[in-house]
């Protein structure tokens, strides 16, 4: 039984702390700006200028391996490359955004509490282990997801605005992208944050937690993200089945993290 008033209270507190930390906000803003604005703008502008198509030989191998019919018929070589990069190549970046942003907020909120010793105050409250872990995970995942969605809207706007003339009108997003952004982004973000919370439970400093996240969590997520990229080449039902599998992995990870959460270990290492 989860008391959502308590979970919400911890999440709200974490968000207030993030909003008032300008350094943290800047770090959070940089990742989506790079992936949603800088890279797609460069792709579309370079594609239109013919620079990308001048490397057609290097792209050809990739294009040859795409399933038939995945690129709309009637596109020129320039249009095909722009479409391929915007729709397929940049897709994994949108799974990296929630992972990176959640890792920043998760290591700040959870390990930060340990570092400032405020975690002990929370442990004295009626919060259950499950509520505390859930609040910390959701407190990081929700902003990360909204940030990713904002980045996605920005991304869609930019690629359509800049690429529309070259592509003959609005060409983005696709249905598979909808599954990616709406379903996979929250699930991957949740998994990443749960793993970071698990790892950071054994760290007492933010640097330690981020280091552990870098070496333990990111490789696992890289594997999942790379698999998700492949999903973009299939149809929506396949992506939805993969999302269902990710739900099971998320739940299993969450309950594992809760089971490994020991108050005694935390307070005796403060």
């Amino acid at each position: 039984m989860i008391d959502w008033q308590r979970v919400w209270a911890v999440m709200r507190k974490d968000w207030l702390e993030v909003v008032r930390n300008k350094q943290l906000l800047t770090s959070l803003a940089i990742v989506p700006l790079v992936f949603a604005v800088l890279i797609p703008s460069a792709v579309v502008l370079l594609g239109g200028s013919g620079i990308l198509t001048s490397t057609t030989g290097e792209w050809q191998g990739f294009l040859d391996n795409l399933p038939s019919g995945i690129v709309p018929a009637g596109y020129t070589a320039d249009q095909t490359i722009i479409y391929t990069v915007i729709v397929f190549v940049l897709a994994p970046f949108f799974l990296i955004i929630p992972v990176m942003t959640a890792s920043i907020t998760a290591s700040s909120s959870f390990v930060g509490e340990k570092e400032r010793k405020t975690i002990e105050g929370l442990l004295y409250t009626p919060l259950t282990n499950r509520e505390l872990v859930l609040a910390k995970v959701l407190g990081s995942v929700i902003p990360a997801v909204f940030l990713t969605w904002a980045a996605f809207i920005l991304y869609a706007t930019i690629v359509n605005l800049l690429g529309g003339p070259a592509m003959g009108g609005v060409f983005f997003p696709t249905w598979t992208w909808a599954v990616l952004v709406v379903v996979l982004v929250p699930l991957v973000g949740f998994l990443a944050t749960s793993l970071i919370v698990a790892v950071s439970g054994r760290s007492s400093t933010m640097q330690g937690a981020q280091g552990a996240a870098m070496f333990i969590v990111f490789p696992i997520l890289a594997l999942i993200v790379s698999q998700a990229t492949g999903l973009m080449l299939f149809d929506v039902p396949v992506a939805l089945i993969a999302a269902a599998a990710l739900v099971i992995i998320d739940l299993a990870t969450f309950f594992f993290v809760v089971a490994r959460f020991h108050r005694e270990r935390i307070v005796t290492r403060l």
Partner: protein
Amino acid sequence: MSLDLSAQRAPQDIIVTASALSKGFGDHQVVSNLSFSVARGRAYGLLGPNGSGKTTTLRLLTGLLTPDQGEVTLFGESVSANNADRLRGRIGVQTDTSLYDSLNARENLRIWGALYGVRPKALAGRVDQVLDVLGLSARADSLVGEFSKGMKQKLAIGRAILHQPELLFLDEPTAGLDPEASADLIEYLKQMIRSLNTTVIICTHQLHGLETLCDDIGIIRSGELLSTGAVDELLRRRWPEHRYTLTVGGDLARAAQVVTSSIGRTPETSSAGALAFSTPDKARVPELVTALVAERIPVQAIAPVTPTIEQYYFATLNEEVL
């Protein structure tokens, strides 16, 4: 030496019981065979020097740590991993390190109220009330990071009492407070205990002013409880005689002779020029005054001297050392 006078009370009144608690970390035994109990509406002072095991005891009592041996009972229930969270909902805990500096005072209190289940409609009013009582209303919207140590201490206590807990744990509540703020805080705690029948456990080594707050005390050193019981009883046992100081206007030597003949004890002369004496029988004091007046020695003042918790604390620690 271990006296547990509070154990004589009716069991239904007991809110906290520590029974033969022991806890160690590695080779270091932090708490050893610690037993005491606290009845509803009483204030218990767990007194001891730094590193004596007070904070570990607090963590054991609140279910944050699991004892290696022994048992903690809160509100009649044995504390376990299954019920500790629920029981903590009836407890308030103040420690000095749990405030959020980047939030303001009102936000710190609101979050804690929500964590303890105070309904949103009642929360705003309750927060204002607590801020008002603690004299922090004017700084309600200031960031806690800008607060002085004393203000933070008050706010931490405000956060612990916000949900009007049945049992309140205070860890060094007067640390860092100036004497006036410390006296104000003790006065407020006394009022709260009286009006809400709150049970309070105070872990501290700052002993000044505790006489007026603590009903019971326990003295802990190196994880062992040297003494525990009701303050009055403990002081009476250690100093069974009534002690007085006498200030006279006339000849001090003559007055001392009158005291000796009347009370049967030779008084001591204090540095302030008063006579100090003790008697097992209070009734002899009016007789002494009559005798002094009969000898035409002006009696300026005669006042009982109450031993303090501080004196008892040091006497107990010194006795154990000897």
